[in-house]
């Protein structure tokens, strides 16, 4: 607590320091020795002494804004904010137009909970500086933050009437409308506010994010209404991302005429999309940015995003375009890795090998070995294990994971087990394979190797059949192989085959570890295909038959949703 307070004080002091020239220009302030002493004492948490020093600074220069603000801070720490009010009154009498003093007075009254005093201070302020929007803005913001929305509305109406025109209050009106749940008017006001001050975009996204589903279209229309301009569409793009609709975000943004502001908006949108794992949308934004302002860096990022989003062909094409715009050395470290990974993923290792050879002159031996390993996976993907081994040899070997996978594809379960186990920190698919290998004592199984190889080649449906076919010969892991088959059928969208596989486990292998999962996944498919009573029966079977299963809470949750006893949106 002590550290935090000091940190805050330091930040405030630093901020004041940065703003000092402005304050001085407004108030004729000069930094006195007393003020500097007060500042030092404040950072050491000696608030009583700091207050005395700030008071001394004020006695020397009654209009010193920095000393007044210092006193405001330390009095707040000491719980004596009320002592500031007389000082503020006399300072304001000397400098009635100084906004910072008025704002400090409002803050102090607010911290004291003196709402009537705030109202009076606001009235005096508007009287002293007619046609100035500051009193209305300051007071309205405080009222909104405190939940006095109706009163804030009145203040803003007064402001629009007295200070002329509503545009100056767009930000406050936007906040007020959002606080009152008037989402569409709020969006219209935000549109105006961000057009005047683009830095408010993040505030607009934050304020409009809670818009209920039913009102979002109205917000979209308000932000995208003609004439289109970059700031509101930038807000809409970020909102769509936050609402889980990244494609709609890009659809809104891509209509902008390419100029420098648009370019910044597109690249910023791509960054946000990447953070949201909306890879293909990020790819599109970066490609558009490259078209507006050709930059190889955009293309390399777009290629990486394409690959992360499953578009290997697009990634290869984008990386190739980037390579043409870069010199060999730069391309070798930026575009080439993603190009090779894309070709490997596409099952085009021969093309990858040619590409790698073309860059041989600019690659170190370590880089060549690293890229050769990438290509080994490409050879595996096309089922050419001999080339895969050659590529691994060219990479200097030492890749237990790749060697383990090759052993697995050849049906050498013992070799695969040993080499995959040797990996220090196996993850993802390696872990799943190890789990399967540890379920069986078999040392060889050509059908299982073939099933994994088929899967590596990307033929999910055939792999699903192969895993099921391998099960009878590996009875100690039979249920796991059938479950793997079922998962692959599900991933492939083949619900009938997936159900058949899960049903085999439920009916024939009810004591297996996969049996509760079989019930649950079967039920989930049934729910997705609107066979609700059948899904309920499966879930009930799971809960009653396997009451100790770790899947029972999930099954109960699914059961609630299937019975519609809880809201489905949660």
């Amino acid at each position, binding site marked *: 607590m002590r550290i935090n307070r000091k940190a805050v004080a330091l930040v405030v002091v630093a901020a004041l320091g940065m703003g000092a020239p402005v304050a001085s220009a407004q108030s004729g302030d000069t930094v006195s020795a007393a003020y500097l002493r007060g500042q030092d004492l404040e950072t050491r948490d000696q608030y009583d002494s700091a207050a005395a020093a700030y008071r001394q600074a004020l006695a020397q220069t009654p209009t010193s804004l920095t000393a007044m603000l210092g006193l405001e801070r330390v009095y707040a720490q000491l719980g004596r904010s009320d002592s500031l009010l007389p000082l503020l009154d006399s300072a304001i009498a000397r400098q009635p137009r100084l906004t910072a003093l008025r704002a400090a007075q409002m803050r102090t009254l607010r911290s004291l909970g003196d709402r009537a005093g705030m109202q009076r201070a606001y009235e005096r302020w508007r009287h002293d500086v007619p046609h100035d929007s500051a009193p209305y803005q300051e007071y309205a913001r405080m009222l909104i933050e405190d939940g006095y929305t109706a009163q804030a509305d009145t203040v803003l109406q007064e402001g629009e009437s007295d200070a002329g025109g509503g545009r100056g209050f767009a930000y406050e009106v936007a906040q007020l409308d959002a606080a009152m749940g008037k989402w569409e008017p709020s969006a219209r006001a935000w549109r105006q506010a961000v057009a005047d001050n683009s830095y408010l975009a993040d505030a607009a996204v934050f304020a409009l994010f809670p818009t209920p589903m039913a009102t979002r279209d109205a917000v979209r229309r308000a932000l995208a209404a003609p004439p289109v301009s970059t700031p509101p569409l930038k807000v809409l793009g970020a909102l769509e991302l936050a609402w889980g609709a990244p494609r709609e975000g890009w659809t809104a943004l891509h209509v902008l005429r390419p100029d420098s502001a648009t370019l910044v908006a597109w690249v910023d949108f791509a960054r946000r999309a990447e953070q949201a794992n909306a890879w293909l949308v990020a790819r599109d934004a970066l490609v558009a940015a490259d078209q507006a302002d050709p930059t190889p860096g955009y293309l390399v990022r777009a290629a990486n995003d394409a690959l992360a989003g499953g578009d290997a062909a697009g990634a290869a094409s984008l990386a190739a375009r980037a390579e043409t715009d870069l010199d060999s050395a730069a391309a070798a470290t930026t575009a080439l890795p993603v190009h090779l990974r894309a070709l490997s993923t596409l099952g085009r290792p021969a093309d990858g090998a040619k590409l790698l050879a073309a860059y041989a002159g600019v690659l170190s031996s370590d880089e060549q070995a690293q890229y050769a390993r990438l290509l080994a996976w490409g050879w595996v993907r096309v089922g050419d294990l001999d080339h895969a081994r050659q590529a691994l040899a060219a990479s200097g070997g030492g890749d237990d994971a790749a060697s383990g996978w090759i052993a697995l594809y050849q049906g050498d379960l013992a070799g695969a087990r040993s080499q995959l186990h040797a990996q220090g920190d196996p993850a993802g698919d390696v872990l799943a394979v190890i789990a399967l290998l540890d379920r069986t004592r078999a040392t060889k199984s050509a059908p299982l190797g073939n099933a994994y190889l088929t899967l590596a080649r990307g033929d999910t449906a055939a792999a699903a059949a192969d895993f099921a076919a391998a099960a009878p010969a590996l009875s100690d892991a039979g249920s796991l192989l059938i479950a793997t088959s079922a998962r692959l059928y599900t991933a492939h969208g083949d619900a009938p085959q997936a159900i058949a596989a899960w049903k085999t486990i439920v009916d024939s292998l009810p004591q297996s570890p996969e049996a509760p999962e079989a019930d649950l996944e079967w039920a989930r498919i049934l729910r997705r295909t609107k066979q609700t009573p059948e899904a309920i029966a499966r879930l009930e079977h799971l809960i009653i038959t396997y009451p100790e299963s770790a899947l029972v809470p999930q099954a109960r949750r699914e059961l609630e949703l299937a019975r519609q006893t809880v809201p489905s*949106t949660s």
Partner: protein
Amino acid sequence: MRIVTALVALGLALVPPTARAQHLLVPMDDEQTNHLKAYGLTYNALHDGARGEWLLNYRGGSFLLPDTPELRRRAALDGITTQPIDDATLADIRNQMSQANMESVPLEKAPRIAVYTAPYSPPWDDAVILALRYAGIPYTPIWDDEIEHGDLAKYDWVHLFHEDFTGQLGKFYIAYSGASWFVDMQRTNMAMAKKLGFPNIPALKKDIAMKIREYVNNGGFLFAMCGATETLDLALAAHGVDIASVFADGTPMDPNADAKMDWNASFAFRDAQLEMSPYVNSMSDIDGHQANVPGRRQPLGTFTLFAFSAKFDPVPSMLVQDHRTVIPDFYGVTTSFMKNRLKPGVTVLADEAGAPWVKYIHGDYGKGSWTFLGGHDPEDPQHAIGNPPTDLSLHPNSPGYRLILNNVLFPAAKKKPLKT
């Protein structure tokens, strides 16, 4: 000795693990894993013809049901803790209860339940519907036309949620007059008023309020929450006075409305001062918290359930059965009830220590009874329009929602002659 041990062991081994006891105890203390579903289990057991008992103050207000495979199955499916007990164990429990502030109340018949809800209301916006659906308790939604056609008599228990019986649609027009949902609400209510022969919404709602009072008078059980509590009584007391603002019926409120209110006609409240301004989102000074009036809004605290004699006051005892006695408060259109606005004879079931308001009240009217609980949603204390609905699977042990379900089940209790 060794032979006896062996025989006992053999005997135990011969008893199948799923052997049935005579009774199924549904504990409602902290051992219960799903308090809310336990009410559904009990309700549906009664619905299927079984008899049960409510063991007031015994382990949080436990239920006693017959031990049947079907009930065990339902309990297992819903994750409800049950304990099979035999006659000897039950005798011990009864003996324990006889010596303490506990009582067994027979549960005989599942009440027929109606929920007064407008057709435009989403089901997830009503705490009672949330509770009923989650617990698996069937109910029938009814609205103005059913009530006008006399359907209330078909039900043992009727629930009112945040309906505004003053006909001013919750004064939502102040902030939401342009919102499409508010326009729909206004249009639907006006259409219903015209269809049923009333000139405007306030006139229709007043008549509905009177029919609800007649239902209670004839022996019905009424449970109201949130704004329905306050506005129902205001509508009843205002049977000869215009208390609706100009936006609701085209004429301003009677400036002397306060003096003309007939509090003999209301259930719970008296001498309330009406809010005369159409621009202030409050109906009267009955509500202590005034959640929608910024300058008057009071902070939330906690409320405490009162303890009653289970043997002498079984009805209030049933209504406060809970595994917690201190419960976090929650806002609503009407959050609480000022003590100085309660009629004499109203039973206070829960209040906030040191505060001038109470939270939960009950009373008899004619042959029936009413219960009012302030607030909107016990698990969404700050509830605001547009908030996501409450998912009760995340709150299966909610002490606040138990109060709602106590009300659902208490009409099932067989009335016993009071001992005093």
